[in-house]
């Protein structure tokens, strides 16, 4: 009988044994990110434990999405260090200087990280199935049969078992996003980054996508870093909520605490504004 972990194919045994449990799966040390003269993140320090699900909230422009993009190596880190499983992702300190890690080292860590984007970003020149199996075959070196079987079971889980041979652009937004989730999970990520995954969707399909993510959260111990405006989803799935403002963490804690009894005035303002809209 398949265990829940087999069902979505997360590698819990390997992941747990590869590093000791004390090593955080993601660690930010004195991270600074600037675009030209504009400082987006400054002196940012935090860590995420294995299997922890952390939601980043805050007004737009507070640097939440930048954090996900830094972890995915989509942005260049301009200061400080990011560690994944205790190993440096972009730079390491050597003789008091920041030295870039080799592309090979970076790639090794990056294959443990998956990301789902606001705009889905499915490849329009491939079918749904081809989108899902492309990287497992050519990056992880899985056989085509293995990758295809896995893809079909993932499509089943996201509720699209009959869409394998369709073109992505013939699907609705919600369906495309569910395929994108399947594509990210097909890589067996240890870390899943969710960047406003429901923001581009019609309101009536947001629930479907969030339910799938709840199921992934319930049945696996994949570490999640979530940026979302869906506060009820954040409350349901996350272990920790971090409130950002002006590139800094101004408050963090369990979702029950943050949402019902925030200590900072800024958090109260933000939550009342967001929850009024909802």
């Amino acid at each position, binding site marked *: 009988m398949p265990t829940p972990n087999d069902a979505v194919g997360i590698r819990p045994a390997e992941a747990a044994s590869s590093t000791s449990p004390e090593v955080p799966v993601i660690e930010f040390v004195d991270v600074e990110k600037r675009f030209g003269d504009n400082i987006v993140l400054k002196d940012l320090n935090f860590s995420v434990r294995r299997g922890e699900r952390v939601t980043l909230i805050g007004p737009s422009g507070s640097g939440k999405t930048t954090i996900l993009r830094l972890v995915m190596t989509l942005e260049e880190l301009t200061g400080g260090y990011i560690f994944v499983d205790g190993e440096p992702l972009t730079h390491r300190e050597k003789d008091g200087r920041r030295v870039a890690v080799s592309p090979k080292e970076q790639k090794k860590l*990056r294959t443990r990280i998956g990301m789902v984007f606001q705009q889905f970003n499915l*490849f329009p020149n491939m079918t749904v199935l081809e989108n899902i199996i492309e*990287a497992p075959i050519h990056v992880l070196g899985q056989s085509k049969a293995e990758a295809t079987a896995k893809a079909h079971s993932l499509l089943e889980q996201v509720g699209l078992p009959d869409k394998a041979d369709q*073109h992505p652009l013939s699907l609705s937004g919600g369906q495309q996003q569910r395929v994108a989730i399947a594509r990210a999970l097909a890589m067996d990520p240890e870390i899943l980054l969710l960047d406003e995954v429901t923001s581009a969707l019609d309101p009536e399909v947001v629930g479907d996508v969030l339910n799938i993510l709840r199921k992934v959260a319930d049945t696996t111990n994949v570490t999640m870093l979530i940026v979302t405006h869906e506060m009820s989803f954040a409350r349901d799935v996350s272990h920790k909520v971090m409130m950002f403002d002006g590139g800094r963490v101004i408050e963090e804690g369990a979702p029950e605490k943050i949402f019902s009894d925030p200590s900072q005035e800024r958090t109260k303002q933000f939550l009342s504004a967001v929850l009024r809209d909802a």
Partner: protein
Amino acid sequence: MEFFEDWPQYFEVAINWSDRLLAGLWTTIQLTLFGGILAFLIAVALGLLAGSPNGWLRIPARVLIEFFRGISLVVLLFWLMFVLPQIWMRNPDLPFRDLVYNTFLLGVIALGLNYGAYGAEAVRASLTTVASGQWEATTALSMSWPHKMRRVIFPQAWALMLPSLSNLWVHLLKGSAIAYIMPFVSDLTAELNQLRRPTDIWFSHAFIGLVVYFILALVLTLFMQTLEARAKHKLGRGPSIREILSPAPKAIVPDAPVAASVTEPKSDAGADVPPRSPSEGGAR
């Protein structure tokens, strides 16, 4: 008027294709095909390099593109035909002597370099037009650069670059007429020019020239349009070739029914407005 009295006679010759005209036509076709293939390879290579973030790759590529785009095709041909061989004449021991004296090959190289440099810009520009989200998704899936280029980015840029490449290929076909200055290469234009001198039927040969180049260009254009339709269909936009050619065409699939790459949210008012027909758009 003598011209009108002799009219039928002028056109009789139009159907009288000599072997030399056929040979010239064949040379023109070969110049266009081989020149086009070389130009395409150069365009892809220089276009990829010119779009590289690495200056050591980008800057030499840019210099080559600007150089071969900027020089005149006629002057380049003159140089290759009449200057380059001099070096070998004075130094007979240099290698590649046969290649330098092969004027057909030099013609293909000149056409390939000149039009390849133009094509490189089309390739580079269409690569930058592929949505940044596509690049980001390939990074998120840890694809290597050759892998993402071959499987994701280039196939999408391909549909965008085809109209420009098609244009350039037609230009190259017509540019190949300049080959008539080349020694030992007798393309269609050279043969027509040869026939002008000893015969008095230049009128009909000039007419043949006009029509034949037009037909060749038409064939190229149709071929490239087929490739473009196929590329678009593969991206999920537009009907397949089979649907286009079928006698009972289905309703044309609108461009990208679900706006996947559109960033701005759909406005509710817009949803009820029917898609504008092409004729309406053209009337403005």
